[in-house]
């Protein structure tokens, strides 16, 4: 836990300066996806399938093309033939192509079937109405369990890979099984075994900024793309592949981003805008409406799960097994494997087995949403643990402490843990005043742990010093959580110059080497590590210049408080040489001084959290109010604690929405019923209590300053913690999310 009076080894890291992009964002100066304009720019619009599953018999675009204001119309036929989306695309590129523009079939309500570029947004919208599409409507399925039934319509034959056992429905496309020990022997040792079934509905990340881009692509194969994304190199690579151009000829610039949460780690409209631009030979801007975002971007998977856990009277878990079925829309990719691997990861288990299924349905292609797959599994597992604690009369934190994974534990998904901080979060939870605060009548308290892997990924950072002694840092990871502030703090720590003297820029694809997406809670870890090492690289050069000036060996110079100093009394008697003094003459002493670092760091360090939630249930209406919420999570080292707390609070806030009211609602016709924020019920500010946070710091040995990513773990415990709180308040077990008032009231009335 962070203690105010602890002497920090850091000067800048751990402080809370204003974010460098703050003024831009509060004054409206920041440029988001839809804020770009270009001379001669056209406006694009996309025609989308009204059917959940339909063969596209015929598309007639002639009436739209005849309009004076319409400059280009594209369908899949355009892409694959004349101007060739590269033929023979395989694997995920093919899936992305199929998703951004339907081929033979429309696979979900909202699937793109054609697009128009016109001289105004209104003209483009009206032109769509003139495109005639003849559909042969096919049977559809949107539910994961139904999609696995023998009579379910087949979304696509041959989509399954080698992992799927014989005899499964073709909609099951990936299978995962892992674990260790002998679960049946373990269940035999248990004093109580509980098995239960749990269901979660798909939710959307709900980022406030709809996808938007401005694309220019000439017939010379050179392109420019401005877009709202979590990672512009993956956009560059994907778009180049889909359009059949050289990757390096497409320069992609990431706009400021109004939220992503994993949903902006792929492309939806960008290849379409580029194709329209190439056909019209004009820049094309495409902006999604909120309804398009809901219908045709990447919500999370929905899940159907069976979990069985055995426990001794003293709280020891003897065996655990789970089956996790996730649907991820009309394409492979639902994170059934992730759900399975994360579900039991917080616990030190002798006998554990987990199975995950990736199932296709007629829904939009799922995308990542903060720790993809993990929250659902935690909901099922932590609910069963809660029920075991209730039945055996055990304290839920004590039971978790008793079974908690620690350094050396063989994780449920295979490897042995290095130093981890789960126990520390549980101890902090137990000691927190929230845990011992009395509950009012009608209230219940819930606890849950959560785990996420965290990720490293390809990373490049460049740092350049200016003559006046200031520094500019070029990173390639779009700033989705205050990372420019964190990078500046880490660079300041190494260089020894003030935070304010460092400007961090998210560089475009033409000005920096490849960078993986801002996902996997990797930015503060990996771009941070690269920033530190790039700064150290610059410091080496600064020391070289000082050594040359002083005429002493470079290893006799060290860097201290922003100055080169002799490394000891024997090195010579020289006054400290500040950074700005060295850079002022760098042009004459060897040239510009920069630092670089490129690598794929592997030591991300897994992350755990424990949440405490109080919920109050109105027994007459089934309405739940979250009255108190505390997040406790291991950050390794909090570089900018305010933004770490923000991540914790954000995870809890999104988890509250997912647990209580957010859900994709499909009609019998397979159409999405609630594609606007009025009916897709994300929490509003007044729905939430102040979310308290505790930052635990168990340093990650894989990062120079000890950082563990914090972006995702925060959404793993909420579903379970809230379900446990609601179940304890209502006096009955809630097994299905969201716990919306009609569902809770029906359960209270005994017909849930």
């Amino acid at each position, binding site marked *: 836990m962070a203690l105010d009076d602890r002497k920090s080894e850091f000067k800048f890291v751990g402080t809370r300066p204003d974010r460098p992009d703050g003024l831009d964002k509060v004054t409206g100066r920041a440029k988001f996806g839809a804020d770009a304009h270009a001379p001669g720019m056209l406006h694009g619009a996309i025609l989308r399938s009204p059917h959940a599953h339909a063969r596209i018999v015929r598309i007639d675009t002639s009436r739209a093309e005849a309009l004076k204001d319409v400059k280009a119309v594209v369908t899949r036929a355009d892409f694959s033939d004349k101007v060739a989306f590269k033929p023979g695309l395989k694997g995920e590129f093919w899936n992305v192509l199929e998703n951004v523009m339907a081929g033979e079939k429309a696979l979900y309500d909202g699937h793109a079937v054609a697009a128009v570029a016109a001289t105004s947004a209104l003209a483009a*919208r009206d032109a769509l109405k003139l495109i005639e599409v003849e559909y042969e409507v096919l049977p559809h399925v949107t539910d994961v369990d139904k999609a696995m039934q023998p009579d379910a319509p087949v979304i696509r034959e041959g989509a399954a890979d080698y992992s799927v056992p014989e005899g499964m429905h073709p909609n099951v496309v990936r299978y995962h099984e892992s674990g260790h020990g002998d679960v049946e022997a373990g269940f035999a040792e248990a004093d109580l075994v509980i098995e239960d079934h749990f269901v979660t509905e798909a939710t959307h990340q709900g980022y406030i900024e709809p996808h938007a881009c401005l694309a220019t692509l000439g017939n010379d194969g050179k392109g420019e793309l401005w877009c709202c994304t979590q990672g512009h190199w993956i956009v560059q690579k994907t778009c180049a592949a889909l359009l059949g151009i050289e990757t390096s000829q497409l320069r992609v610039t990431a706009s400021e981003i109004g939220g992503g949460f994993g949903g902006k780690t792929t492309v939806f409209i960008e290849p379409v805008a580029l194709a329209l631009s190439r056909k019209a030979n004009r820049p094309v801007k495409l902006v999604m409406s909120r*309804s398009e975002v809901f219908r045709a971007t990447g919500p999370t998977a929905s899940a159907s799960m069976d979990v069985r856990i055995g426990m001794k009277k003293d709280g020891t878990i003897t065996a655990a097994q789970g089956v996790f079925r996730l649907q991820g829309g009309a394409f492979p990719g639902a994170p059934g494997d992730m759900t399975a691997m994360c579900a039991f990861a917080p616990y030190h288990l002798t006998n554990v087995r987990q199975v995950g299924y990736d199932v296709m349905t007629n829904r939009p292609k799922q995308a990542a949403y903060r720790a993809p797959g993990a929250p659902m599994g935690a909901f099922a597992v932590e609910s069963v643990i809660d029920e075991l604690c209730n039945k055996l009369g055990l304290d839920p934190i004590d039971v978790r402490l008793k079974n908690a994974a620690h350094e050396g534990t063989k994780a449920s998904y295979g490897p042995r843990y290095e130093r981890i901080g789960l126990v520390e979060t549980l101890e902090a939870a137990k000691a927190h005043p929230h845990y011992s605060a009395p509950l009012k009548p009608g209230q219940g308290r819930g606890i849950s742990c959560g785990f996420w892997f965290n990720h490293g990924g390809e990373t490049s950072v460049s740092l350049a010093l200016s003559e006046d002694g200031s520094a500019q840092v070029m990173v390639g990871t779009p700033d989705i959580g205050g990372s420019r502030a964190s990078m500046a703090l880490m660079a300041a720590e190494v260089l020894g110059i003030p935070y304010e003297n460092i400007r961090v820029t998210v560089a475009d694809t033409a000005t920096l080497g490849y960078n993986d997406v801002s996902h996997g809670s990797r930015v503060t870890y990996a771009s941070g590590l690269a920033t530190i090492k790039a700064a150290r690289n610059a410091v080496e050069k600064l020391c070289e210049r000082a050594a040359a000036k002083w005429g002493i060996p470079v290893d006799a110079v060290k860097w201290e408080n922003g100055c080169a100093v002799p490394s000891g009394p024997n090195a010579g008697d020289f006054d400290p040489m500040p950074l700005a003094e060295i850079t002022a003459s760098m042009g004459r002493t060897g040239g510009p001084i920069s630092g670089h670092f490129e690598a794929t760091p592997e030591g991300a360090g897994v992350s755990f959290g424990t949440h405490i939630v109080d919920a109050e249930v109105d027994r*007459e*209406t*089934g*309405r739940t109010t979250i009255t108190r919420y505390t997040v406790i999570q291991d950050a390794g080292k909090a570089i900018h604690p305010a933004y770490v707390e923000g991540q914790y609070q954000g995870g809890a806030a999104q988890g509250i929405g997912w647990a*209580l*009211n957010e859900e994709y*609602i499909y009609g019998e016709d397979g159409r999405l*019923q*609630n594609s606007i924020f*009025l*009916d897709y*019920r994300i*929490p*509003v500010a*007044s*729905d939430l209590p102040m979310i308290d946070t505790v930052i635990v710091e168990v340093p990650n040995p894989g990062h120079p300053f000890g950082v563990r990513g914090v972006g995702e773990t925060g959404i793993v415990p909420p579903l379970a913690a809230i379900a446990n709180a609601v179940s304890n308040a209502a006096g009955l077990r809630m097994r299905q999310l969201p716990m*919306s*008032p*009609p569902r809770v*009231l*029906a359960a209270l*009335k005994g*017909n849930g």
Partner: protein
Amino acid sequence: MDYHSPASFAEASALAAKATGTTRFLAGGTDVLVQLRSDIVTPDTLIDIKKIGGVRDITRNADGSWTIGVAVTGAEMSEHPELGREWPGLVEAMDLIGSTQVQGRATLTGNLCNASPAADAVPAMVAAEVTISVTGPDGVREVPVEQIPTAPGRTSLAKGEVVSAVNVPARGANGGDAYLRFIPRTEMDIAVVGCGVNLRLDGETITEARVSLGAVAPTVLLVEDCAKAILGTTLDEAALDALAAAASAACNPINDKRGTIEFRTEVAGVLAKRAARIAYARAKGEKA
């Protein structure tokens, strides 16, 4: 699209009478403009009634009744020093609609003429026995609010007719009103069930009662059986239970994305009891 901004309701009526295709009247625009931008309704004729004299006025008449102009916004109603003291249920119902920004535009008249079964202001108006003045080719007629909506999205207003005023009765002595809605969130949502109650007491005893329900049928309901259940009572537990039962019995809801038939039917009774308690307290001059 033809846009008009007439100077009188007679002119507005004449414009509407001779218009062809789809006609919409524009006051706050919180429904019309949203529908237009969402490509749901693109009117051929848009008649802006905001520029007619007096449409932004809240007027107390000599007999204690109120006339509310058709372009008076929710914010103006909430900030009025007297109206909310006399008709807190009506003002609170209007104030529940949308965000602060929407409150700066939205009107009672628009909420009524949009004819959504889930409109918040409408059950409160029905309970308060509000009428509207309708100007048409043949002059002005006065119509009870409950006679305006005929189905979701449809009203009884004829071609060429335009709402020209909202008439709120005098509060009178020993009266109180209340409106409650159920939403899963705390704001920025649409009623799953709504209930308006308006009472008058003689001592502790209820002598006049009007109970309305929203979002539980194709149109707002004025439920006589609810009124009967509490008339002549002191709103004791038995009366409240009878009120809840009558409210639930009156429901004719649908299953949709916002709620189930069972849920709406059950919660209509719960809200009727809760709203009645508030209206009763207000009628007794207590703060509620």
